[in-house]
């Protein structure tokens, strides 16, 4: 088995694995989707009733805690905000205390206080304690407040995996495809377009046929499927994967963890087989 990284950035990865079959490829895909732990807000406590604030002129003003959206919708939106994750944190049920208690190893608390009018952004969500757990993107709107409205929230974030709820899903758009090669006779007009726009896709440009691959996205490739003169070959042992993350973990961390996680998943199957 050989892994080749084709493209990697903070939130996106594209890589090729050679010498595996569909079953193995799908195993990697499913691990990437639902078995990467990440931090997300699970419990939100709203302050209900009136909220007093001393204004700049020294007078106390009373704000209302009612908002345009239902509290359930607000807490759902808060849950979906990606938070920077430390993979050394524990799941709550694997921590040393009973599952209904919390400790700094498994829980991060957040507060949010915002007075209207204005939009409440994810940047207003302040972690209690370490600043590194702040939301990845501070510009996610949560709710819009009118005059005399205020939002005071306590929130609790725990680790979880994507199989439980979408808020713990690190990756999106996880997909794989097999390596394909197209043999294009050189009398076709599309040759010039490919030479111009898809240079990286060309494997060989000698003789009567040009050989190209669709491992890298290229806008002319869709046309090739409809041409009878073009011959396509699939290599079902080379798989090209791609996925993107929501920023809570980098693409590199995610891939590393997924491959490490595969081994424990397979070990669990082996251990549970009774001979």
């Amino acid at each position: 088995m050989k892994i080749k990284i084709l493209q990697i950035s903070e939130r996106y990865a594209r890589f090729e694995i050679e010498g595996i079959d569909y079953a193995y490829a799908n195993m990697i895909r499913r691990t990437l989707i639902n078995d990467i732990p990440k931090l997300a807000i699970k419990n939100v406590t709203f302050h209900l009733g009136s909220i007093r604030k001393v204004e700049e002129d020294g007078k106390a003003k009373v704000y209302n805690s009612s908002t345009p959206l239902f509290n359930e919708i607000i807490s759902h939106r808060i849950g979906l905000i990606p938070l920077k994750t430390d993979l050394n944190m524990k799941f709550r049920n694997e921590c040393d205390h009973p599952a209904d208690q919390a400790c700094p190893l498994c829980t991060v608390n957040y507060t949010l206080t915002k007075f209207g009018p204005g939009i409440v952004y994810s940047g207003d969500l302040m972690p209690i304690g370490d600043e590194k757990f702040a939301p990845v993107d501070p510009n996610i709107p949560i709710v819009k407040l009118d005059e005399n409205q205020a939002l005071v929230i306590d929130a609790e974030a725990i680790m979880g995996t994507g199989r439980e709820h979408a808020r713990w899903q690190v990756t999106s758009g996880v997909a794989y495809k097999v390596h394909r090669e197209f043999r294009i006779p050189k009398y076709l007009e599309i040759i010039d377009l490919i030479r111009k726009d898809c240079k990286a896709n060309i494997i060989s440009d000698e003789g009567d046929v040009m050989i190209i691959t669709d491992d890298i996205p290229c806008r002319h490739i869709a046309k090739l499927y409809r041409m009878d003169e073009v011959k396509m070959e699939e290599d079902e042992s080379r798989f090209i994967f791609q996925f993107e993350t929501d920023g809570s973990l980098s693409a590199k961390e995610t891939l590393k963890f997924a491959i490490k996680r595969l081994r424990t998943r397979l070990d669990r199957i082996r251990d549970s087989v009774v001979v």
Partner: protein
Amino acid sequence: MMMPVRCFSCGRVIITDYIRFQENVEKIRREKNREPTSDEIDQIFSDLGVNRYCCRRMIISHVDLIDDVIGFD
């Protein structure tokens, strides 16, 4: 109401893309004094990195109604 935080189908955080998409559309309206063409919208999505059609339909079909309901708290 408000734009959903994530894409319903794939889970990508699209709300920040929606804000940037709106800025770009407004820019075209202001500079060229017309609605953007479908090719221009396609180009905006590609520049933002919104490549899948599930995320694109989230942004393109959204109607922001929060300002209409804000009076009914």
